């Protein structure tokens, strides 16, 4: 699980161009949207595509997305359970 969390943090930094962040700057339970990392709706779309492309998970229900993208911790748990690749 730790390896997946690290991988996710690296992907988030790279895909969302968070130039000023390093893996160490993102805590497992940091809120991704709003006050935490400050991600927005465009980032949410980027993350949805990332889930599909890298882990074979298709998120179609917006409410499900809201729950999944709370933090790296929650996201990693969800991926571990639902990944198809």
């Amino acid at each position, binding site marked *: 699980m730790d390896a997946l969390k690290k991988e996710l943090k690296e992907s988030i930094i790279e895909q*969302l161009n968070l130039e000023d962040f390093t893996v160490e700057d993102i805590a497992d339970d940091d809120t991704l949207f709003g006050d935490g990392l400050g991600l927005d709706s*465009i980032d949410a*779309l980027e993350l949805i*595509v990332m889930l*599909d492309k890298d882990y074979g998970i298709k998120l179609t229900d917006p409410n499900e997305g809201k729950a999944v993208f709370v933090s790296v911790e929650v996201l990693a748990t969800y991926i571990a359970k639902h990944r198809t690749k």
Partner: protein
Amino acid sequence: MQPCYINSAVSISAQDTLDNSSFLENTISFEGQLAKAIHPNYKSFISPIASRRMATGVKMGIAAAKKALALAELETPDAIITGTGIGCIEDSEKFLNAILDNDEEFLTPTSFIQSTHNTVGAQIALTLKCKGYNVTYVQGAASFESAVLDGQLLLHENEAKTVLVGGTDELGKYLINDIILAEAAEKQPITTPFGEGAHFFSLSQSKQNNSFAAIKGLKIFNKATAETIKIKVEDFLKEYALTTENIDAIVLGKNGDAFDELYQSLQDSSFKSTPQLHYKHLCGEFFTASAFGFWTTANIIKHQHIPEVLKLNTIKKSSYKNILLYNQLKGQQHSFTLLTSC
């Protein structure tokens, strides 16, 4: 048309031009085929949250635009008009490559949103919260001149009192290699490197304390030959009651290719006794490179000094009042721009 006044001129180019303390004093010469822009610390101009999705051209454009407004002591212009030949090619390439790499699946929105030609103008407006007139011109090598002409018309028609005009183009990573290959196959190819840059200017309807030059006239036309260009330039100057003898310097967009014969034709005839200047060896060739020429000319008028690196001949004038810019690319998209002191 009434002249409009230049109150600030800002350049981000392959030379150290953003710093206003010197004017082309220590220039860089290029050995290779690319003249990449010298980038400032963009954090001084754009917040990290906003800049993380911006490609090179957008960052250059916003930084140059913001500095142009600051120098002109203007918070929000009435209009923002941008010229670009190739738009945000970096993001266009990224998006198109993602389509190919992922077999038309998994397309992310950011590079698509940022890949349009009007991204720079739009991002400047968003940054300034400027809801005024906002247009981007994409007219090849006459893109910047089209933006200036529109600005001039807005001021002349009293539809705006202040206008921010600029030109911006970025090198990108892939298309430029094809352009270099295509150019190498030409009999007489472009010999200057290929470049990039962003140039912005604050223009006003009336003369202000910080006005240092004026745009007297501008003409864009698509066709000319080494013979007809001499007549065209005389006709253009006649519109402003000037002759070639009244021109204190001519600034030419020479890039070394076969179409330099158009410039040479003017150098050998109408402007034989005029100081002749060039600039594309400093900034590289790109669709809005003429904006670097415009920046150079405005600064010559401001400083009343021509840096040695620009000179094609040794003729000097005691003062530089009227300076004519002539640019074209591959024998098309010609433009004459006449700047004057004020």
